[in-house]
């Protein structure tokens, strides 16, 4: 791809170098820690599942029992219990759900535990590799049938069965990606609910059963439409790695997953988030799941012109964090958004500049591009046009994952007809400008080119500052999104655990090995 913006390669390299420097000390911290949800995620990979009569999930029951023993890693105890009880994984899960305590079982032979654990790793590995192979095979079988950029819509009824109807309808109408939005505030639950759910507000619970139900429903459509349908959820919030684990097991294809979103926008403790994000990303990487990062969130509270550099800086950091977790660029759905004030003169030019800039700086990433949201109003007719221009920019700059703007964005979570209207809008625009990207060039030193260069410069300058103070202090000072988050505050801090000298996690080791990560 030829550059249309004449961005300085040097400055881009500098930004990447800065990202590496900024992220590096955080990696050291991560290496020494685990968290309750990392352990629960590991248990889930090992097979822990189910819930007790109060709905407390088995992985939570185990971790709660372990208390300070958690520093050794939860797997040891789970596998030990398997060996001691002679139960199958399912049997053990049932027992634990019925109240069995496994923390105090005498620990058996380490070698035996490791041997059994490796067995579980293998079956995990087989399952996830099978999922991955299946996805790849279907993508290959139905190559060329997806739209480019991918058309992404959300369903959010709160009821998984209603979601299924709406998702199948949307996929039938041309959607390539279905995201099941989570219920309001699930991100702050320190557990993942169990089973199929039919209640939620503004979204539907992310549960493994719900994943399974939706995956099966979409697989039907895949065959009918002869097109692979990507399923998306949120590996985000207090259970980031667990949801990644569930997604890997149930063949989700994308996950909202950001290295700092939880800290800034959900007031989750930063240590906790940094540790969680890495493990979640290793799982995503292994499972071939595309992550969608949350840079668009900066623009829901800040101005999209003024604070464009925060988006780009965050992309560089997300990229770095992702590389550190073994994610290749082609799985990085780095986020950005079309969120300028619609009354802004030449706003389209600036949006175009920024979208093209993201495209050129991250040429391999399937960029996730968000539609106008905060400047959408109850005027649905105006909204259609805002969405049309967004569709235009996305197509002409070759974005990867295109979240569909809804004409009713300011009113309600999408009706079935809203999604259809949005899909018609996008399909028409995309087809009508199919090859435009290759046809137009930008004037040298014009408004568009200068805007992109300016944002890059501002980003580098910002990252230089962050590098100087360090990432955690910078967050504490409110340098990101004007939100100050002290490192010892925020939700989930009590779930942070320093790894003990005996820490054992064969799943982590397996993943590191598979992903070619040192350590």
């Amino acid at each position, binding site marked *: 791809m030829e550059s249309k913006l004449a961005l300085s390669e040097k400055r881009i390299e500098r930004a990447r170098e800065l990202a590496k420097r900024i992220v590096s000390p955080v990696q050291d911290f991560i290496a020494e820690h685990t968290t309750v949800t990392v352990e629960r995620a590991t248990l889930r990979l090992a097979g822990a599942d189910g819930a007790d009569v109060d709905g407390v999930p088995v992985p939570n029951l185990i971790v709660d029992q372990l208390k300070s023993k958690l520093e050794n890693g939860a797997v040891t105890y789970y596998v030990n219990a398997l060996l001691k009880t002679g139960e199958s994984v399912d049997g053990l899960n049932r027992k634990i759900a019925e109240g069995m305590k496994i923390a105090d079982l005498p620990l058996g032979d380490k070698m035996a535990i490791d041997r059994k654990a490796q067995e579980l790793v293998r079956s995990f590995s087989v399952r996830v590799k099978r999922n991955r192979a299946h996805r790849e095979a279907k993508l290959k079988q139905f190559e060329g049938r997806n739209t480019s950029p991918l058309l992404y819509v959300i369903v959010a*009824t709160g*009821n998984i069965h*209603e979601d299924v109807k*709406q998702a199948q309808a949307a996929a039938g109408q041309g959607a390539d990606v279905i995201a099941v939005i989570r219920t309001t505030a699930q991100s702050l639950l320190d557990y993942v609910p169990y089973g199929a759910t039919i209640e939620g507000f503004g979204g539907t619970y992310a549960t493994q059963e719900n994943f399974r139900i939706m995956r099966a429903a979409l697989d039907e459509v895949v065959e009918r439409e002869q097109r692979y349908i990507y399923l998306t959820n949120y590996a985000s919030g207090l259970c980031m790695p667990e949801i990644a684990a569930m997604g890997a097991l149930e063949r989700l294809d994308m996950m909202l997953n950001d290295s700092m979103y939880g800290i800034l926008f959900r007031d989750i403790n930063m240590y906790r988030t940094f540790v969680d994000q890495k493990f979640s990303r290793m799982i995503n990487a292994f499972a071939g799941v595309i992550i969608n990062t949350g840079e668009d969130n900066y623009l829901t509270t800040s101005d999209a012109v003024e604070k464009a550099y925060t988006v780009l800086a965050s992309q560089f950091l997300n990229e770095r964090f992702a590389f550190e977790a073994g994610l290749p660029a082609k799985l990085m759905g780095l986020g950005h958004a079309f969120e300028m004030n619609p009354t802004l003169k030449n706003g389209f030019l600036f949006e175009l500049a920024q979208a093209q800039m993201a495209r050129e700086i991250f040429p391999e990433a399937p960029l996730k591009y968000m539609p106008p949201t905060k400047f959408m*109003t*109850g*005027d*649905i*007719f105006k909204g259609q046009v805002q969405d049309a221009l967004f569709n235009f920019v996305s197509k002409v700059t070759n974005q990867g994952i295109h979240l569909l703007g809804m004409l*009713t964005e*300011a*009113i*309600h*979570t*999408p*009706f*079935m*007809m809203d999604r259809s209207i949005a899909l018609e809008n996008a399909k028409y625009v995309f087809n009508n400008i199919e090859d435009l990207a290759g046809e137009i060039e930008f004037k040298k030193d014009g408004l568009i080119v200068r805007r992109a260069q300016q944002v890059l410069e501002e980003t580098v300058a910002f990252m230089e500052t962050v590098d100087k103070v360090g990432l955690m202090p910078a967050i504490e000072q409110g340098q990101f999104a004007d939100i100050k988050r002290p490192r010892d505050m925020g939700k989930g801090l009590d779930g942070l655990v320093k790894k003990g000298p005996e820490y054992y996690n064969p799943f982590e080791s397996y993943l590191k090995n598979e992903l070619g990560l040192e350590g």
Partner: protein
Amino acid sequence: MIIRPYGDTLDDGAVQLSFTLPVPDGPKGREAARLFVEKLGFKHTEITHSHALAEGFSFYVAYGKTETSIDFDTVRIKEATGDKVYSMDEACEVIKEKIGRKVVVVGACTGFDAHTVGIDAIMNMKGYNHHYGLERYSEIEAYNLGAQVPNEKLIDYAVKVKADAILISQIVTQKDVHIQNLVEFIELLQAKGLREKFIVCVGGSRIGNQLAVELGYDGGFGKGTYADHVATFIVDRVIEQKVAR
């Protein structure tokens, strides 16, 4: 089956509306709009947008939920053609077999209406959307008189060529000008004692079979019609008449 509109949940009754009120924009206008929507039978009404159109006129976008429902099972549709629509070849075959002579059809866009694209789509050789027009039917003799043809002239022509069927196209419907013109045509035909001589069809983007029948036509054809449809209708009717006699 009782059905209601569907937003995102069965039977939620969700509907979108937009309209203008002849009052100024503002809180009072919005409340008036909301009350109006309620009066139409909506609950959970919401005026999601309003803006001024002019002094004393304002525009509203609304969403509401209604319990108004209809019984889908009792919905009856009266299309001119049933499920079986002949292809061109089939139609010609049937004509050859069952009628044994060419069927004569005269068409026009009548009155002041100059929208010929519709009638051309039905009659011209090249047809429409890969459906050939009547002129291409080997067993049909088709005369297309074009635009703005006076009713009188169309009838005279139909008599002259001994038409089996007359096809009228009406596209301009503002202030029901098409109704006036269509009624006038039938009255004229009756006055001349010719009503029973012809199968008379009317088509147009806002014409339906129901309306056509009410106005005294044999059949009416709306959006998405092809020559196939009207040919099927005419052929079947001609055969019927032969049998009847």
